[in-house]
């Protein structure tokens, strides 16, 4: 306590340790247009900027929460964990990276899969958690995705996946590369059963995830202005030694080049996907 505080009578003295400041995160700045926005308003708006429509990145649980009906919901294969087959270690042990990511996100790995409903239509929905090691795909992500596809086959319902990933998880080396083949093979089975797969690519969807399950939708959807591609822009710049054009590898670039079917605003995702699914199932449009 400094001398000035000591002069004050105890009644009006405030201990600096329980002094209330401005609460953290009450305000937030839009990365798109720089507007300063009230955090609660952003949340009400599904993390889409009300000024410029910038789609902020959101976590896997929030994504599924926004997308699925409130109930029923059942998480699939939630207990799976990587067994670190290579005892991988770079500057840090893979095991340590995993537990740090688990602590930071509350997830066991980078994909959450749920069986639930969309406007009363049963489906399986999966979402990547980008904050879990960049949403990278290793053995657990691959297995959970496949369990989701198998559940869709078992319950004769569609599969929807929201991707947000930097690609394959290096720390599992060839095991993670093989998840590309594994998830694609599972989707082949789903297609043979005549069940739809809708892939929604969100910012960012790159590398091994983009080059497997994400591009294999019967309908490929993207959120506005999401970065979607095989090689990262920095790698391409180093290879071709030229500046990349504005908007390169963004959703609008992809739709122009014929890689995706449509761009859907997050706030319309439930309506539009429900319509698509009902069209594919030959059912009336759900309300």
């Amino acid at each position, binding site marked *: 306590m400094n001398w000035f505080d000591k002069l004050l009578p105890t009644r009006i003295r405030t201990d600096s340790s329980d002094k209330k400041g401005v609460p953290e995160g009450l305000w937030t700045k839009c990365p798109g247009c720089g507007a300063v926005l009230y955090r609660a308003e952003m949340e009400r708006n599904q993390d889409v900027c009300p000024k410029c429509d910038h789609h902020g990145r959101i976590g896997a649980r929030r994504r599924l929460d926004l997308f699925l009906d409130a109930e029923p919901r059942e998480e699939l294969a939630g207990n799976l964990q*990587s067994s670190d087959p*290579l005892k991988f270690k770079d500057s840090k042990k893979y095991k340590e990276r995993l537990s740090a990511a688990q602590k930071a996100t509350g997830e066991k790995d980078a994909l959450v899969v749920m069986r639930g409903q969309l406007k009363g239509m049963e489906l399986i929905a999966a979402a990547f958690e980008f904050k879990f090691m960049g949403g990278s795909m290793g053995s657990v992500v691959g297995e959970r995705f496949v369990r989701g596809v198998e559940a869709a086959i078992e319950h004769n319902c569609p599969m929807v996946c929201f991707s947000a990933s930097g690609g394959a998880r290096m720390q599992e080396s060839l*095991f993670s590369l093989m998840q590309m083949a*594994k998830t694609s093979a599972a*989707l082949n089975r789903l297609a043979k059963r005549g069940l739809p797969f809708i892939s929604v690519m969100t910012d960012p969807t790159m590398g091994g995830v983009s*080059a497997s399950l994400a591009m*294999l939708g019967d309908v490929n959807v993207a959120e506005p202005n999401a970065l979607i591609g*095989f090689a990262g822009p920095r790698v391409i710049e180093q290879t071709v030694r030229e500046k990349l054009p504005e908007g390169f590898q963004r959703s609008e670039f992809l739709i122009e080049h014929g890689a995706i079917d449509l761009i859907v605003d997050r706030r319309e995702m439930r309506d539009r996907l429900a319509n698509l699914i009902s069209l594919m199932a030959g059912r009336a449009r759900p309300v």
Partner: protein
Amino acid sequence: MNLNFLDFEQPIAELQAKIEELRLVGDDAEINIQEEVERLEGKSRSLTESIFSKLNPWQISQLSRHPLRPYTLDYIAHIFDDFEELHGDRTFADDPAIVAGMARIDGRAVMLIGHQKGRDTKEKIHRNFGMPKPEGYRKALRLMKTAERFGLPVLTFIDTPGAYPGVGAEERGQSEAIARNLFEMAGLKTPVIATVIGEGGSGGALAIGVADRVMMLQYGTYSVISPEGCASILWKDAAKAPLAAEAMAITAEQLKKQGLIDHIIPEPLGGAHREVEAAARNLKHALIEALDGLAQSPLDRLLEQRHERLMAYGAFTGE
């Protein structure tokens, strides 16, 4: 320094140079140096044996990309008869980084598909250093479908640093081309045998690598990212590539131990490039054996087993 020898092979290169020198001297000298040449050759052989008996993953990674290493077309010339190369994806272009066509092995008709690198600068550029673009993968898929229609087994040869990271490749859907191949190969109604003959670089390799048998030449490598790429991301320093090569388990021996490949094809002493014919013989033998093995299974069983193999990839705990 002899550029046809890698760093760790330099002692062998020096001995070889000495032997060459003696031979030249021997031609016009009175004395008989035959004995000395033989002695040095023996020494060179045992030196090679000793160096090659304890190669580390980084050295093997360098061998897999050795400038003299045989490429797909070299093996095709040595192993197959009546090769008819087929070109193009029917939509955009022919990608010289992937060669494909029908041929006979031991009298049996097959479809061949492989990455192709170039030997000299001009050819390297023409082949884009063995890095395919979407049209390459689409050509491969088109010909796999042709093979399916005519009941030809598909033999693929993997040897690429990876799919090409370029503007045009992205515009034409590099991701989709790779994904589509993975999707289609999983259900292709004909036997598929994939062999890593050199460098198995990530998704660009896997895009022709979904198979009923996955084999690797002894000094091939197969990984999710190059050791240099991994080192520059995780160690923030590409010079740490030897550490990354070690950590990622990229050699045939390590991958066999992990159950990710089925068979290792031995290479001649010093690597495939020292005796191309012997390497090709070993590869041919392994291919015929794999073809014979797969010919036994009826098609639906083959497809079920392929699916089970793909579903089994992964290492995790907990239910």
